[in-house]
């Protein structure tokens, strides 16, 4: 039995905002299936009594003084934008037809 189906991979691609071709989906489905089957081994040793680590070092909240520091100018911030209009980032429409 495969760990992941092609339909599931297509769903992951949508969630990941990746417009993949059919050929890519076929290709990735096989590879992801192989990878997921291999990494699933972690469950063998992950018993209930082991606390998870999200990070290598014990860290508590790190604060800095709340001081005003120079930031980017609008010109610097917009300098590398794909499209600009009236000193703002111009983006494609964000609402669907039904809105």
């Amino acid at each position, binding site marked *: 039995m495969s760990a*992941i189906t092609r339909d*599931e*991979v297509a769903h*992951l*691609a*949508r*969630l*990941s*905002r*990746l*417009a*993949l071709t059919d050929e*890519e989906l076929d*290709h*990735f489905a096989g*590879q*992801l299936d*192989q*990878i*997921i089957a*291999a*990494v*699933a*081994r*972690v*469950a*063998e*040793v*992950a*018993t209930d009594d*082991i*606390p*998870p*680590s*999200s*990070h*290598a*070092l014990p*860290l508590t909240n*790190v604060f*800095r003084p709340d001081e005003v520091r120079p930031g*980017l100018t609008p010109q*610097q*911030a917009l*300098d*590398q*934008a*794909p*499209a600009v209009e009236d000193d703002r*980032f111009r*983006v*494609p*429409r*964000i*609402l*669907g037809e039904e809105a």
Partner: protein
Amino acid sequence: MSELIRKTAAELGRMVASGEVSAVEVTQAHLDRIAEVEPKIDAFLHVAAEAALEQARAVDERRAKGERLGPLAGVPVAHKDIFTTVDMPTTAASKILEGWRPPYDATVTRRLREAGLVIVGKTNLDEFAMGSSTENSAYKPTRNPWDLTRVPGGSSGGSAAAVAAYAVPLATGTDTGGSIRQPAAVTGIVGTKPTYGGSSRYGLIAFASSLDTPGPFARNVLDAALLHEAFSGHDPLDSTSINAPVPPVVEAARQADVSGMRVGVIKEFVEGEGYQRGVLRRFTEAVELLESLGAKTIEISCPSFAYALPAYYLIAPSECSSNLARFDAMRYGLRVGDDGTRSAEEVMALTRAAGFGPEVKRRIMLGTYALSSGYYDAYYGSAQKVRTLIARDFEAAFQQVDVLVSPTTPTTAFKLGERVDDPMAMYLADLCTIPSNLAGNAAISVPCGLAEEDNLPVGLQIIAPVLGDDRCYRVGAAVEKALEDRWGGPLLKEAPSL
């Protein structure tokens, strides 16, 4: 070829400071060498000749004014193209950032400049540092100076190849699962993954934030220590930066003494399958050498290390799927399909499909899967528990020994194309390096000879506890000194194929 390119970084720094040679002469010699070898190795994505000479002139002017120069002022360095640089393009070897000019310098970049190091250009890498061969670069593969048909390792393969080809004495890298140590091993040079949080991630394009660690490449241990010291230390702009002094790495590299040290040989990393015979032979000899130098060696078992690779390939993709969500085609970078009819979401999906390469897509989808509800506990949650077990194994080991050793990689450099469409085979290159990323401790790779089957370099990995980076250098320098006495000089006398 100028004799200047044969010098160590320490020697070059001394010569510039004393006025024996100018920083401009040193820089020009290396730019000439880059022009000579670059057509063969393709180590750079961007060579900044003019900017480099300008930085060199500034160093010479400071000296002329009587300023005291630091130990690396006027020394050329190649910078992995994943650190932001205001005066050079920054691409992470991805088409999605082609031509991007960042509005700010990374902390590592700024510290290189402040130390008077001359940044000669940006080096090639696997796209967003995801890979072990530099073949995942969206622009070109880099070739190993020892054999141009082989990979230089990855992801920091451009930096490693540039140093091994004598194009620069120093380079920066980042190590998320082995991306400094593995390329250093397969190109016959020195590379360090410092303690996580010891070097700043500010301005480092994020791949897996809990693992990413900037570190140095050099042709000898002392030079690596000098670069390590130059860009490390607390940075308020990185919230995971450690607020503690940089471990005394330069002093340790000069000390080069292992007498009385306890060295643990990781059992799981010499007994498993997939290790090349010549790699194990050079490793065993290195352990015997450490004993002859007065170290006490014992075998140490770290049973959970067998689960490090699968845990890593859940944790790193999970973090990457989140980090790479920022490439949304809205504020910077590539935008595809914005023809006035498509929605922002459609433009995002088209841009990301066009701008990311296959390995990046694989990892984003794998991470999205591992984090999705219903699978989270079985995959990401279990991987985080394995991370705890690995840290415990290290903790227990370091109660018995001062450092641990293993081969850096199971095999020598593999052929270009050999593993490119077999992700699991590619991932195995990081088998021995991943545990230290998951636990955050320090590790170095130093050359320990050539495998007899293929005459390619083998790396010895020396692993130290968190903030014990100096131990890596102390042991590394001792091994280096003893091996150079035996060989009558460094392993890498010249890049053999160039």
